[in-house]
């Protein structure tokens, strides 16, 4: 990842998740979700969910198209959390329980974050 790994001050406890989950596109976030264990997925959810409002309050200070690197990394972590939320809150496993093959669904609008 070209941008630096560090997160903004006050979110240091989320640092361990940056390498695996600070991802800019939905295609990649979904692929990582489907290839991760529930342990890893729950780890991200348990770390980010309680802080989500703080994260949004902090990130809302910046224009979406002009964010410093550390804020952008935090946003990517939050975007990955959106991706894994159904796995934790609904399906209790990495992918949808009974579903059409994910590889056969093209994701055609996927603006990188």
């Amino acid at each position, binding site marked *: 990842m070209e941008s630096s790994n560090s997160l903004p001050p006050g979110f240091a406890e989320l640092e361990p998740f940056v390498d695996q989950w600070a991802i800019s596109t*939905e295609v990649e976030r*979904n692929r990582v979700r489907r290839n991760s264990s529930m342990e890893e997925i729950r780890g991200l959810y348990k770390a980010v*969910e309680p802080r*989500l*409002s703080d*994260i*949004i309050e902090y*990130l*809302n200070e*910046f224009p*979406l198209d002009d964010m410093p690197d550390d804020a952008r990394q935090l*946003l990517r972590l*939050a*975007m990955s*959390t*959106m*991706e894994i*939320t*159904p796995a934790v*809150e*609904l*399906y209790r496993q990495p992918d*949808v*329980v*009974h*579903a*059409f093959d*994910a590889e*056969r*669904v*093209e*994701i*055609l*609008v996927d603006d990188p*974050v």
Partner: protein
Amino acid sequence: MDPRPTNLTHKYGMSTEPMPLEPNISANYFEQEREKVFTHSWMNIGRTYDIPNPGDYLVKTIDVLRTSVLIVRGRDHKIRAFHNMCRHRGNKLTAPGIEMGSAKGFSCAFHGWTYDPEGNLVVVPDEAEFFDFDKCDNGLAPIECDTWEGFIFIAKAPKESLQSWLGEFYDRFEGYFDTPDYVRVSYYRAEVNANWKVVLDAFVEAYHAPFLHGGAYPDQLSWEDNRFAHLLGAEMFERHRVLSIEGNPDHDPSPIEKHLLKYSDQVFTLLANPEKSKGLPKGINPTRDDKWAFDINVIFPNFYIASMSVMPLVTYHFWPVAVDRTVWQTEHYMFAAKNAGELLAQQYSKVFARDVQREDLITLENTQSVLASGAFTTMPLSDQEVAVRHGYKVVEEMLR
């Protein structure tokens, strides 16, 4: 008393007998649909806001019409549709895989024939070598094109105007969709080995919600007061049809949803949203019910518009390719995200909807692969599946 509508099948004069499976497995029936339905149908391709400036264009392969359609906004701002074929030896004008772009004109890569944004042939290299040749007679082959509510429609051989085709829908939305404010935030597409009607049927009834979506919608669509997700409303028109679906007002948002709802109201929780459905055109939440979650508007044959309390516009298209093959696509439109909170709410809604739609798709190939087994030849449909039944009736009438 169950306030929800009953005896819909009778009300709309349809037989309650089981429906034949033949229309979904017969290659001959499919060819008749191509010839007598799709050839004369007005079909949506994209939105006017996708091509705002002169020279902006859309390209779409329409297998059922056996052509590729090029839609371009001329310098006079008029939107025109053409067959994406050079008049010389028929080569496609746009590169493979391109669906959208902008150009001053279109040059064929084969021999350089060039057309302006209005489809006129303007350059023919080595023109003198052709025989009594007039560029004016050799512009791009036009396709009928018109717009409605910000949607672009084309028709290969229409028997009536778009307005007449839209019938009861024409003035239902009063410009509600005709705005650049709805930004396309997602576009998913899949090739499915199933008949286009089998695919469409999976999206025009709620009876499946408690089973197929038991995990995704624990109680949003079916709960004690409405165990089998009965329809809130249903209107069967001459060709088109509308269903209204209600949401459980007591559904509690999930932990993540609780956070997001503080920063955006575009969160895909299907929550009934009474204030949101005030002062809207008659086509949005036609039941005017406080528990309204979303409407399903099917514009025959294959264009499906869902208007929702949580997001203004979701579209589906069901592009027939063969009797047992369909390109399914869905697009979600929301207000542009102004900050991270709104962007995250959008992403949550996209992921939630995409996962649920993969649940909707799972039964289709399972079904089609055994539909011609001969185990049985008709399917019983409930009153709640009135829109499924209506689809077959409309096609049947057009084939006569």
